[in-house]
């Protein structure tokens, strides 16, 4: 596309990243040429359905793609000005946790049940700061206090099973943030939580972000989480980012038929809908992708051109672009209908 200007506040830049998984039966193109960048203090949402490659994107950013089947075959991941794909495994260990970290979906399984949370926090801290015991203790207490755990001194001796799901997820967050990374990847961190607890957690993340200038990549299937949390959105479908842009642009003027369909197929809290739009069929398998545009078999606007080649990217607003042939000036098929954003009825 265009030469991406590397502004000084860009912390992470991903260029044409491809991560494939090689199995005996087929090559799974889990991530197939995605590019995006992330600025300090910004929240980027990566939205997509299961099997669209969003989790593999997250693992690629940490260089934790499952070996030996999975491999990053192409691209650049520039974190703090350095391409981490050029680093050795030893150097990566310094990058993980300190520059980029991750919060996983299920708090039940991301803590080790046989160690106290103080123990697990100190382990994470100990890797970053080689210090004496007492200062480590106060650091652990600070880390818990930062994620709003009440009475952190007493909580240090608790085992994970003694805590509720929401509390555990905060501890996971505390561990992820213990080494003050610049980027955190949150992979569906609230799907296992109840709604009122989810809100507490999302607000907490926002507060920490405002204080520390943390950049967050939010991986989710839920447009509600995106609307609540993100500054920018990248919509993934079958291994590609098919549309990305500012969150308000995406929600008010989605350009790609898939984005439109996805937003329209979610029931609205604020508005009663007579009938939801529904997309026919299912996403393609990443091991057996169709030629041309990957959404073409399900797309209501499809024409012959869509099956011939993967569409180019079209700029719509500042920083908002989408991959769809229907956005081309010479498009012969049915034009994409005007999108009507939802309106709030309750006040």
């Amino acid at each position, binding site marked *: 596309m265009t030469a991406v200007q590397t502004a000084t506040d860009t912390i992470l830049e991903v260029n044409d990243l491809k991560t494939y998984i090689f199995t005996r039966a087929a090559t799974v193109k889990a991530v197939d040429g995605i590019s995006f960048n992330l600025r300090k203090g910004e929240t980027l949402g990566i939205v997509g359905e299961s099997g669209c490659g969003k989790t593999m994107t997250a693992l690629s950013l940490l260089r934790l793609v499952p070996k030996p089947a999975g491999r990053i075959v192409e691209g650049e991941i520039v974190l703090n000005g350095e391409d981490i794909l050029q680093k050795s495994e030893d150097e990566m260990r310094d990058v993980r946790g300190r520059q980029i970290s991750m919060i996983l979906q299920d708090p039940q399984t991301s803590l080790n049940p046989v160690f106290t949370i103080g123990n697990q926090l100190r382990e994470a801290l100990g890797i970053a700061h080689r210090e004496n015991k007492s200062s480590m203790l106060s650091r652990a207490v600070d880390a818990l206090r930062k994620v709003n755990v009440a009475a952190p001194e007493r909580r240090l001796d608790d085992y994970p099973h003694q805590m509720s799901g929401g509390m555990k997820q905060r501890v996971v967050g505390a561990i992820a943030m213990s080494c003050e990374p610049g980027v955190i990847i949150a992979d569906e961190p609230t799907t296992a939580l109840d709604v009122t607890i989810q809100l507490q957690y999302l607000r907490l993340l926002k507060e920490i972000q405002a204080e520390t200038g943390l950049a967050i990549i939010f991986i989710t299937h839920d447009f509600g989480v995106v609307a609540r949390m993100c500054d920018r959105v990248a919509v993934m479908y079958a291994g590609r980012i098919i549309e990305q842009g500012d969150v308000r642009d995406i929600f008010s003027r989605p350009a790609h038929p898939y984005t439109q369909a996805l937003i329209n197929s979610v029931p609205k809290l604020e508005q009663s809908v007579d009938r939801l*739009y529904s997309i*026919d069929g*299912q996403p393609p398998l990443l091991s057996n992708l169709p030629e041309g545009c990957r959404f073409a078999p399900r797309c209501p606007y499809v024409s012959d051109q869509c099956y011939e080649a993967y569409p180019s990217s079209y700029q719509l607003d500042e920083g908002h672009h989408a991959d769809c042939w229907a956005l081309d000036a010479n498009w012969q098929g049915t034009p994409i209908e005007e999108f009507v954003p939802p309106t709030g009825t309750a006040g």
Partner: protein
Amino acid sequence: MAAVTTSPEVTGVDTQQRAGRVAKVVRAIRELPLIPLVVLIFLLVIPAIFANQLAPHNQRIGVLDDAKLPPFWVSESFESRTVVQRADKDRLDVEIGLTNAQRKVERGEATILSGGEDGTVDPGDTLRFQANKGGSMEYPLGTDKQGRDILSRIMHGARISLMVSSLAILLGGGLGTLLGMMAAYRGGKTDAIIMRIVDIKLAFPSILLALVLVAAIGAGFTTVIVVIAVLLWARYARVVRGEALAIKQQDFIDRARVSGASNARIMMRHIFPNLVNTVVVLATLEVGHVIILESTLSFLGAGIPAPTPAWGVMVADGRDLITTAWWIFLFPCLAIVLTVLSMNLLGDWLRDKLDPKLRNV
């Protein structure tokens, strides 16, 4: 906004499905664990089925003159000794008594190397005679001390092993599966009682328990099967119960209950079919265990009574001749080791294929 009605979702065209199926079969064959399968087929299955046609000799009656013949690749060996009036007991490796020497020459078993010009054996002559008989293709793996062909006995032994293990596993596994399923499904008291019996059973040392049982019932083919089944069922019950408990938690059991299915129907139609993989994997893994148990019992004299050629009995027969006629001992041992090893490899493979949850059994 266009309202699209739910339209049928097609899973694929027939031809496509068929092509997929062929590819699947090809891939399945390519993934088979070939070495263990080949070993098992040639060592266990074919001999067990065709022992009567394949075995070159009678497995029970031997030819005493052919006793302790070595395997075919061992050739006969000779030694030379000096003839003396009366051989010194400590120098038997170099000397031979006169009377003994004369008898050997008369029978044509020995030739005189030097000093025998006069045609008689005298002290001071050097005698050369056969020390050990050589093997031949007549008895490819040699014979035991009663002159029975070891190869034939191993073939018939395979039949015993296969029969004992399949019957014992069928009996013990069936009982264990049933009890484990009952315990899981009924829960409460039934569960507590069955599982305590399992605990008690598992607390006994199995060989001791087996010996006591054999002593009580009396040795025999049926006894061995019953005893091994008694040793086996508890493990089945425990594994099956754990598995069935997990299945019971699944929504489809609730769905069946909402539909009004009876307990018997839920157990047979919903729970049991989902246990089959576990049971099969466990059975395969247990075959090796059972063969060892059966051999151990036979070795201890509490198993299949002689002259039935059970592998354990053969090992026991050969153990006192291990220094002179090692083949009597070695070949049945090898048969046991190879079979059990292959069975375990096959079981591991099956487990990975069918039921990865069983990894720690």
